[in-house]
C-alpha cells in the first residue's frame, strides 16, 4: 500500500512538472511578443530583452496608430465581422431549428446533402468563377455570402436544439394555436441564448481572422480588412513610408530597420486586442461549442 502511494505521489509531481513545462512553452512566446512590442528594438534584436520589457517605449504603437490604413482596415474588419456574423446567424439558426424538428419531411436527405459538403466540394476555381459570375468581385458581399453557413456550426446548433428544446414545448405551442414562427421567436430563441453566444463568437472570430477570401475577391485597397494590411506588414515586410519615416540620413535608415521590427510586434497585439479582451470572459462559451459538437450530431 505504501509503496503504491509513493509511486502515485511521484506521478503527481512528474505530471505537474510536465504540465508546468507545457504552460511555459505556450505562455513564453505570448509574453515575449507583448514585451517586445514595448521594448527598445535595440535590446530586442540583440537578445538583451528576453522576458520583461527593457528600455520601455511606445513608439511601435504610436507608429501603428499613425497609419491610416490600419485604422481603415480595423473599421472594415469590424463592419465585415458584424455584418458577416449577422448573416451567418440568419442562415444558420432558423435552418438548424427546422432541421432539428423530427416532423420536418426530408430532413435526412437535407442533412445528408449538407454534411456531404464537409468532405467533398467543387474547390477553389469553380467557387471563384461562381462568385465572380454573380458579380460579387471586389464587393463586400464576396466576403459575407459565400461563407454564410459553416456545416460544423450548423450541426452544433441542431444538436443543441435537439437536446434542449423539449418536445412538450412544441406540443403545448400547437395546442395554444401559435405558429411555428411564434414558437421559434418567442420560445426557442430565448431558451437558446447560450448557443447564440457560442455561434456569434465562433463566426465572429472566423470573420475577424479570415484573410484569404479578401485576397482573391478584393482588388480595392480601401476595402481591405485588417488581416490583409497585417499580411503586408508581417509576412511581406511592406510598410508604408509614413509609418517608417524617421529622417533622411544614414543613421535614420538604420533606425528604420529597427523600427520595422517593433512595429511588427505592436501590430500583432493591436490586431488581436478585441479577441484578447473578450477571450477570458467568453472562454466557457468557446468551450461549450466544442462540447456540444462532440455529442451526437
Amino acid at each position, binding site marked *: 500500500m505504501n509503496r503504491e502511494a509513493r509511486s502515485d505521489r511521484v506521478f503527481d509531481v512528474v505530471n505537474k512538472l510536465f504540465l508546468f513545462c507545457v504552460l511555459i512553452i*505556450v*505562455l513564453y512566446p505570448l509574453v515575449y511578443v507583448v514585451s517586445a512590442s514595448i521594448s527598445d528594438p535595440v535590446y530586442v534584436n540583440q537578445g538583451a530583452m528576453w522576458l520583461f520589457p527593457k528600455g520601455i517605449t511606445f513608439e511601435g504603437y504610436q507608429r501603428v496608430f499613425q497609419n491610416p490604413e490600419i485604422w481603415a482596415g480595423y473599421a472594415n474588419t469590424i463592419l465585415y465581422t458584424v455584418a458577416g456574423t449577422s448573416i451567418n446567424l440568419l*442562415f444558420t439558426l432558423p435552418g438548424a431549428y427546422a432541421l432539428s424538428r423530427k416532423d420536418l419531411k426530408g430532413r435526412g436527405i437535407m442533412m445528408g446533402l449538407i454534411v456531404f459538403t464537409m468532405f467533398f466540394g467543387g*474547390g477553389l476555381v469553380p467557387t471563384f468563377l*461562381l462568385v465572380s459570375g454573380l458579380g460579387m468581385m471586389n464587393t463586400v458581399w464576396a466576403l459575407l455570402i459565400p461563407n454564410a453557413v459553416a456545416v460544423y456550426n450548423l450541426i452544433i446548433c441542431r444538436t443543441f436544439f435537439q437536446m434542449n428544446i423539449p418536445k412538450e414545448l412544441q406540443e403545448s405551442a400547437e395546442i395554444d394555436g401559435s405558429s411555428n414562427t411564434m414558437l421559434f421567436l418567442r420560445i426557442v430563441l430565448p431558451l437558446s441564448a447560450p448557443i447564440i453566444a457560442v455561434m456569434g463568437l465562433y463566426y465572429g472570430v472566423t470573420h475577424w481572422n479570415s484573410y484569404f477570401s479578401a485576397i482573391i475577391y478584393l482588388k480595392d485597397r480601401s476595402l481591405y480588412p485588417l488581416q490583409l494590411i497585417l499580411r503586408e506588414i508581417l*509576412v511581406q515586410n511592406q510598410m508604408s513610408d509614413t509609418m517608417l519615416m524617421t529622417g533622411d540620413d544614414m543613421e535614420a535608415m538604420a533606425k528604420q530597420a529597427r523600427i520595422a521590427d517593433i512595429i511588427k510586434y505592436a501590430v500583432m497585439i493591436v490586431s488581436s486586442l478585441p479577441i484578447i479582451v473578450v477571450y477570458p470572459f467568453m472562454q466557457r462559451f468557446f468551450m461549450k461549442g466544442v462540447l456540444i459538437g462532440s455529442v451526437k450530431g
Partner: protein
Amino acid sequence: MTAQTEPLAAKKAERAPRRSGWKSIRKNWELYVFVLPTMAYFIVFHYFPMYGLQIAFRDYTPSLGIWNSPWVGLENLQRFFDSYYFWTLIWNTIGISLYELAVGFPIPILLALALNELRNGTFKKWVQTVTYAPHFISVVVMSGMIIAFTSPSSGLINLAIKALGGDPIAFLSEPGWFKSVFVFSGVWQSMGWGTIIYLAALAGVDPQQHEAAMIDGATRLQRIWHINLPSIVPTMVILLILNVGSFMSVGFEKVFLLQNPLNLEASDVISTYVYRSGLVQGQFSFSAAVGLFNSVINFILLLTVNRVAKRLNETSLW
C-alpha cells in the same frame, strides 16, 4: 460528429409517427421557409461549384463561359500527371499531412490525460486558459510570429541558438526545415484547444471503475492506461477520421503565408499550386482538374479510413 453505436431499431422508434405527408407539410410550412435559405445557400455555393467542376474536362475560356467551352476529356489531368512537379506536390502534401498527424494527433491526447489527473484548482485553470488561447490567434499573426521568431538575425529562436553557441538557422529559407516549422508551430497553436473534447470524454468515466481498480491496487499510471485511455478511444477514432477528411487540403492558409521562393520545393502543396496556377496564372481548367484530383483522393481516403474504423472498432462517421 457522431459515434453511431446505438442500435438501428432505437433510431427508428425515435421518428415521429407517420402522419399523412401533405397534411404535416401544410401544418409546418414555416419550417420549410426556415430551412429554405440554408438549403439554397448549400445548393448555390456548394453544389453548383461541384457541377462547375466539369471545366476540369473542358478548355475553359472566359468568353465562352463554362457551358460552351469545348470538351477536352482527360487532357488537363494528363498534363498534371506528366508534369515534372507532380511527385513533388504529392510528396509535400502527403509528407506535411502525415508529419502533422504523427506529431499533432497524440499530443492533445497526452495533454488531456495529464490535465485530467489534476484536481480542479488554480493551476489547472491556468494551464487550460493559457493553452487554449493561441487557438484564437489569426493565421496571419501566427505566420508573422513564426517569421519574426525564426529570423536569422534577430529572431528569438536564433538568438537562443547563438547564446548556446550554435550557428543561426534560416528556418524559412532552408527547405529542409519547412515541414518541421509548419508542424510544430501548429502543435503550439492547437494542442490546448484539442484537449477540450478529450477532457469531456474523460469526465464521463465512471468513478466506480477507478475505485474498484484502486482496491485491486492499481497505480495511477495503470488506471490511466487501462481505464482512461480506452474510454477516449471512440473520440480518438472520430477525430482521426475527420483529420483524414482534410488530409489533402493541408492547412492551406498557413502554408500559403509561410511559402517563399526559397522554400517552395518543400512547401508547395497541391492546394497552393491550384491557387497559383488557377487564380494567379489564369489556367482555370487545368487547376480545376488538379483540385478535382485532390478532392477525389481525399474523399477516397476518408471512405477507406471510415470503413476500416467501422470494422475494427465499430465507431464511424456514418
